[in-house]
């Protein structure tokens, strides 16, 4: 009988400094929240972080907290408390588990860093480019904590990006400045803002380069690794800290490629992951794919923190472009072409679509895309049902069998 082989693979050395980076990030914020030394903005992960960094805010990301709640499997217990307040089990489980976490005064930060609670915000800043749920999420905190709420309302289903869309987003970002100045009590400094945009641009370049190392055969790392190592691109974007980290990670990945180090020993198959991670099941999924000699080499998800249109010389406009050209706000033809381009670059043998019950915006299997891409690219596709944080929506046995059968199908050729 074959049992799933436990992962014995070579660890990524940069994981250690990553741990320190994350600890420092949370300790700095915890200290600021306690002492009032710096203002804290809560921001959506694909929100206008550069503006906030450029105005001297420390930036906290509730989505990152949601992912931590998911990864620690605290989320499934906490979601029902938000459901009981009238927030449906069908809406974003980041929202519901995070609100549940607040209500129950439980956070994974306590276990990880001995931090009692998430930092209290001075302002809440959202961008609806991911979904409408983020606005409702932050609005709940705005009412609960009596904290100002500002945001960017994005365009959706975008084919070719139009000038008016960029101008609109740029002007919405500009419009936030007076309100944010009201929070910081300081005048907006364009040079500081440009510096943050420059850092963010560099982070994007480095992060893209890291992800593209997975084009190597065998791949030096997997989607599951990248979901962990993307943290600085999310939380430290717009600072030098993130760049320093990826300056460290990138050469390590390049060296792995040079040395032929395979993230999945004996890599036989390569897959693309479309949709959200299943945070509470990263390890078992990673181990199952490892045992099946299948490497998930690329994903739309990890690519979503590449904003290489950012340009410090045109900070507002380039933020408008960067936050409008994102996969998640684009139309179906664009998305299909995007995955096709990834197919050409990463040479995968199949695509796995994760249909996340509470994340329709990031579940691209629901309008026939798997079937269309399968026909276009001539590769098989698989859809598994699950969720980012609500494990009540996930049948592990069904998912495992589906994945195993999918790899069997790949073996048949």
């Amino acid at each position, binding site marked *: *009988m074959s049992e799933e082989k436990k992962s014995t693979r070579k660890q990524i050395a940069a994981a250690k400094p990553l741990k320190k980076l994350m600890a420092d990030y949370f300790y700095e914020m915890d200290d600021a929240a306690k002492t009032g030394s710096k203002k804290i903005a809560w921001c959506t992960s694909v929100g206008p972080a550069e503006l906030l960094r450029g105005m001297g805010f420390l930036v906290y990301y509730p989505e990152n907290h949601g992912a931590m709640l998911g990864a620690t499997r605290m989320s499934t217990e906490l979601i029902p408390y938000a459901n009981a307040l009238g927030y449906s089990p069908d809406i974003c489980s980041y929202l519901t588990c995070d609100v549940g976490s607040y209500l129950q005064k439980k956070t994974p930060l306590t276990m990880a860093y001995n931090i009692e609670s998430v930092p209290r915000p001075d302002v809440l800043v959202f961008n609806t480019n991911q979904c409408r749920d983020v606005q409702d999420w932050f609005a709940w905190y705005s009412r609960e904590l009596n904290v100002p709420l500002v945001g960017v309302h994005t365009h959706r289903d975008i084919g070719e990006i139009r000038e008016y869309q960029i101008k609109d987003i740029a002007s919405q970002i500009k419009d936030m400045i007076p309100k944010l100045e009201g929070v910081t009590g300081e005048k907006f400094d364009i040079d500081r803002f440009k510096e943050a945009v420059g850092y963010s641009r560099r982070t994007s370049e480095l992060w893209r380069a890291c992800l593209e190392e997975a084009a190597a055969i065998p791949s030096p790392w997997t989607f599951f690794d990248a979901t962990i190592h993307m943290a600085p691109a999310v939380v430290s974007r717009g600072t030098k800290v993130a760049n320093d980290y990826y300056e460290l990670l990138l050469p390590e990945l390049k060296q792995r490629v040079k040395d032929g180090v395979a993230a999945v020993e004996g890599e036989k198959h390569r897959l693309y992951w479309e949709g959200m991670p299943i945070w509470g099941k990263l390890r078992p999924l990673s181990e199952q794919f490892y045992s099946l000699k299948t490497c998930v080499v690329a994903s739309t998800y990890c690519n979503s923190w590449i904003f290489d249109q950012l340009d410090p010389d045109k900070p507002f406009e380039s933020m408008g472009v960067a936050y409008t050209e994102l996969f998640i706000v684009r139309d179906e033809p664009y998305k299909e072409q995007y995955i096709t381009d990834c197919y050409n670059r990463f040479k995968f043998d199949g695509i796995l679509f994760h249909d996340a019950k509470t994340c329709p915006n990031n579940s691209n299997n629901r309008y026939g895309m798997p079937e269309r891409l399968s026909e276009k690219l001539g590769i*098989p596709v698989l859809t598994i049902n699950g969720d980012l944080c609500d494990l009540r929506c996930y*049948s592990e*046995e069904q998912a495992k069998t589906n994945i195993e*059968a999918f790899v*069997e*199908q790949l073996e048949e050729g």
Partner: protein
Amino acid sequence: MTDKIEPVFAGVDVGASRTKVVILDAEKNLIGHAVKKSGTDFTETAGVCLESSLKMAGISKEDIASCISTGYGRKNVPFSHETKTEIGCHAKGCYHYFPVSMTIIDIGGQDNKVIKLDEHGRRISFKMNRKCAAGTGAFLEEMSARLDIPLEEMDGLARKSENMVELGSYCTVFSGTEVLEKIRQGKKVPDIVKGLFLSVIKRVLEMDSLTDRVVMTGGVVAHNAYLVDMVQEITKSEILVPEYPQLTGAVGAALFAMEGEKP
């Protein structure tokens, strides 16, 4: 019954509802088989089924050259040499009986599968039902309990229907409520049972399109042949069914064993 020892091959399909074991001889003849409720001890049930199958074939365990297990409990079979998914085994079993390109509809106790094969028997695609048990054997089991009708009588009742009652709900529990409502309205039991069958068929047909020849397998089909007649009527095409539809996955597993797909 034979005293000649030939290499024989075993396939064990430990499903969520029933465990099925088959023994094939070297000519791929089905010489032994058994079906039993999987229960709570998959290992023991698989062992009991194997014993029955060996007895039927008139051979002993030592005669088995290779054994492959499949199904939800595939990893709970200590005497199997390798595991395969039930998707692969159903495909293998169906292609053995009908070597054409096909769409397989397997209705099991707890999950449904729609599997497409090309003319060489290679899998093109497959889909399993989503999380819920709508359209599976579990749905019919739940309804038979609600209606207090033995499962084995449902097929005969459905055939007697003259004015089928359609049920609208997607959910097994809500369907149960709907059934109670129909009873209150005085609808006839055979008409309700046929409505339940149609509900199963609708859940399956919405999983995927049907292409090429359609083959139906699984325990639900084995015990409710009228379902096949209904699908034929709905799709206006002839449906193929193997001789022992419930054993198809186990047969596929035994065929894999025969091909030497073992460590």
